[in-house]
């Protein structure tokens, strides 16, 4: 029975997806939710060691290396799978209600299939299985994101083009190694690759580069950082949490799986180091830090709520990449920890934004405002999520950010740390902006009658809030599994218990942190109660220099500061070409199309063809005669 559990995780959801295509709307989404829930339950119940690896050879002989469906539940895969399936279960519960008659995006069958291939990415034990799942997941994402119209499709296409570029490179890398060791198995090829790196073989670097291209594009690290802003923003609203919370982590999973063995298990001195760090990691560190900075700045300047969150995802992937590249136990653990946290808080944020859009139909932030009064639970979820996202104690995000900084301090990567602090401060800016523009300020008259989300939709939100607080209180909840992952890679554990984490230059008791904040809050609440009587006044009763707003036709919509919120910063950055990479890509695309049209129109002309055939033949013959 357990033998077939792994393939069932991969194959059953797509089959169910096919089935779901013939079901009525509600049942489709119910099936999706139940599948996600079942996956999560199964994975939480098992331990990595208990699962037999699954292997079924595909009779494609005569290709050289054996092909087949090889699956294994390594601790790393288990960690990623548990985190992502728990998050996915919440997202799909939200989707179940979200996709009512009016909002049905019809993606449930594809979403189901995606769940299976997603699990396949984590479970794959050979590169071909990995590639197949990876590529099919990309295609499904393209369809899900792009099946709507106009913008959405170009967004999906951006995503797919980059993804295809990366995944084909991955395939090439896998082959490169397989040509030498005759195996597509991931562990075999990593052993070989590690050996190459250790022995200083030149081929190691292009192979590593080919692998990394796939992961870097998927993880949206610089200079591939622009696709989430399109794809995550244009995806169906209830799918964006999955896209941003789970799907983008495949890239980090790949980086983790390939880079950790290669750089932790090569002897000292085999790879040139910069600042005590192998040079590829050092470069990755800077690339990630740059990603964090650029993502943050773009998020500050955007006015579209989903786009803002997408850029925030990019920035967070930057943190994760920087942590991973610190080349230490602490950094690796911090990367995994932050990744898990990001799943929750970004999932929560996208979910709340989806809920708001569900109720109001708005996405542009300046068209909303004051919704905290109408959707208090959604507001609280968003608030806790941004506290976590900005890395503010006592929510979960602080714990992982603290570890990231500890890792950087340990290696004295102070300039990267500065970049991350910069990004982190910026994160506070754009997150507050989102909070303010959506939930605070004046309530638009159009949204007078907006109601809170229904119970089933609120359920995942409550789950997110609990998770954020629980992890903020006891980071050990995540750090214990992280330690298992580290152990499986032969690394030391992070020194921690449920609530205390020991870093390189300091240690923190998160329970105390939680407690003292609670105490301070209680004290201040006492002051608050002791103070004079307070009266609630209407929102438009404001200081207006003595003017009566009604006199000059002021409406709540106009009495809201939300558009071009950080104009001064924009002015400061007006000289810095933040959109340069995007423009460059667009320019390359235009040049390609121009070349294409030259080929299509020019080279295909009769004159050109005739002359080319005559000239070619003449030259060849002449050449032949001469020789």
């Amino acid at each position: 029975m357990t033998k077939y559990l792994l393939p069932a995780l991969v194959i059953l959801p797509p089959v169910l997806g096919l089935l779901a295509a013939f079901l009525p709307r509600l049942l489709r989404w119910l099936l999706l939710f139940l599948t996600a829930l079942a996956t999560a339950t199964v994975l939480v119940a098992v331990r990595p060691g208990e699962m037999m690896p699954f292997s079924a050879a595909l009779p494609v002989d005569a290709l050289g290396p054996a092909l087949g469906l090889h699956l294994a539940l390594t601790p790393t895969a288990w960690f990623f799978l548990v985190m992502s399936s728990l998050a996915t279960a919440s997202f799909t519960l939200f989707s179940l209600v979200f996709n009512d008659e009016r909002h049905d995006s019809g993606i449930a069958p594809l979403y189901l299939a995606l769940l299976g291939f997603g699990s396949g990415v984590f479970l794959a034990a050979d590169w071909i299985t990995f590639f197949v799942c990876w590529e099919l997941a990309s295609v499904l994402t393209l369809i899900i994101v792009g099946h709507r119209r106009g913008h959405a499709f170009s967004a999906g296409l951006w995503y797919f083009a980059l993804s295809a570029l990366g995944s084909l490179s991955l395939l090439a890398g896998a082959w490169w190694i397989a040509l030498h060791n005759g195996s597509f198995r991931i562990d075999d090829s990593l052993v070989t690759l590690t050996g190459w790196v250790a022995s200083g073989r030149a081929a190691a670097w292009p192979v590593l580069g080919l692998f990394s291209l796939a992961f870097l594009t998927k993880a949206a690290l610089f200079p591939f950082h622009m696709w989430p802003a399109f794809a995550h923003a244009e995806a169906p609203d209830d799918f964006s949490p999955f896209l941003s919370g789970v799907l983008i982590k495949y890239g980090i999973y790949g980086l983790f799986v390939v880079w950790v063995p290669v750089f932790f298990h090569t002897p000292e001195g085999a790879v040139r180091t910069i600042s005590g760090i192998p040079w590829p990691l050092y470069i990755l560190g800077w690339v990630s830090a740059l990603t964090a900075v650029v993502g943050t700045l773009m998020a500050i300047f955007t006015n579209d709520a989903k786009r803002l969150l997408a850029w925030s995802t990019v920035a967070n992937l930057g943190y994760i990449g920087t942590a991973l590249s610190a080349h230490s136990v602490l950094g690796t653990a911090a990367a995994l920890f932050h990744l898990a946290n990001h799943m929750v808080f970004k999932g929560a944020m996208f979910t709340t934004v989806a809920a708001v859009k569900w109720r109001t139909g708005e996405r542009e932030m300046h068209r909303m405002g004051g919704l905290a009064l109408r959707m208090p639970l959604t507001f609280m979820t968003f608030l806790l999520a941004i506290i976590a996202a900005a890395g503010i104690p006592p929510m979960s995000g602080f714990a992982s950010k603290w570890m990231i900084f500890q890792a950087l301090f340990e290696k004295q990567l102070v300039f990267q740390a500065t970049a991350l602090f910069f990004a982190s401060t910026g994160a506070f800016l754009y997150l507050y902006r989102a909070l303010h523009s959506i939930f605070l300020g004046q309530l638009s008259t159009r949204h007078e009658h907006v109601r809170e989300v229904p119970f089933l939709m609120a359920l995942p939100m409550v789950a997110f809030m609990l998770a954020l607080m629980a992890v903020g209180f006891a980071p050990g909840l995540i750090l214990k599994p992280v330690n298992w992952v580290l152990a499986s890679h032969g690394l030391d554990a992070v020194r921690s218990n449920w609530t205390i984490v020991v870093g390189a230059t300091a240690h923190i008791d998160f329970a105390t942190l939680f407690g003292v904040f609670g105490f301070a809050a209680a004290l201040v609440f006492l002051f608050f109660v002791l103070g004079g009587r307070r009266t609630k006044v209407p929102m438009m009763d404001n200081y207006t220099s003595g003017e009566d707003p009604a006199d000059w036709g002021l409406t709540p919509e106009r009495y809201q500061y939300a558009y071009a919120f950080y104009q001064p910063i924009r002015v400061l950055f007006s000289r810095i070409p933040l959109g340069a990479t995007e423009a460059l890509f667009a320019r390359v695309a235009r040049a390609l199309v121009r070349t294409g049209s030259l080929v299509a129109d020019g080279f295909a002309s009769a004159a050109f063809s005739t002359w080319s055939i005559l000239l070619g033949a003449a030259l060849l013959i002449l050449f032949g005669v001469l020789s």
Partner: protein
Amino acid sequence: MEDAVLFNLRDERQSAWESVLNYFRKRSMWMLYYCTGCGAIELPPSMTSRYDMERFGMGPMATPRQADLLLITGYLSVKTLKRVIRSYEQMQEPKYVVGFGSCPINGGIYWDAYPVINHLELFIPVDMSIAGCMPRPQAVLDAFQKLMDEIQAGKAVGYKRYRKHLDWYKRNQDAVLARTEAVLEPWEDPFSDAALVESLWNDAPAEVKEMREVRHDA
């Protein structure tokens, strides 16, 4: 309990706790100055190094929400009255009003101008009026000192009067603010008619009247 305090302001005895609070209130008066008239020119010297209002804990504030003290620094027209009332109502209790110069008292030299309000006390309670055209900073500071004494003594309770007799104040305000509405017909100027003003005063609650008499005596 609040209401009990309000009943008879003459006979009110303040609790010890209230008098402690009043100490803080008098020692930290934050002003909102409504610089409509010439009195505004007296404030900078009062605030800056020469007379240094800050030594009494007084200072300017940006919005009525934060302020304790509303300064009406000169004449008021009908239109500015509307703003004054809104600002006054946005201030939080306890709050005090000080009228500068003759204009808030009786219109001063503008007493017969059509847009000018002659009796500020008809519309909002005034806790202290400073005679003069204009009063010099010495007089201004003197008035503040007196106001502080009254606060400590629990006598500067215009805000309570306003709350208690709100309907009377509102009626007066409405009567005059009606003139800010656009009209096509020329109207009788009610405030040039001393009889109307007097009739408004005749309807005044006793304790408001009494305040007026006290003022006149002074």
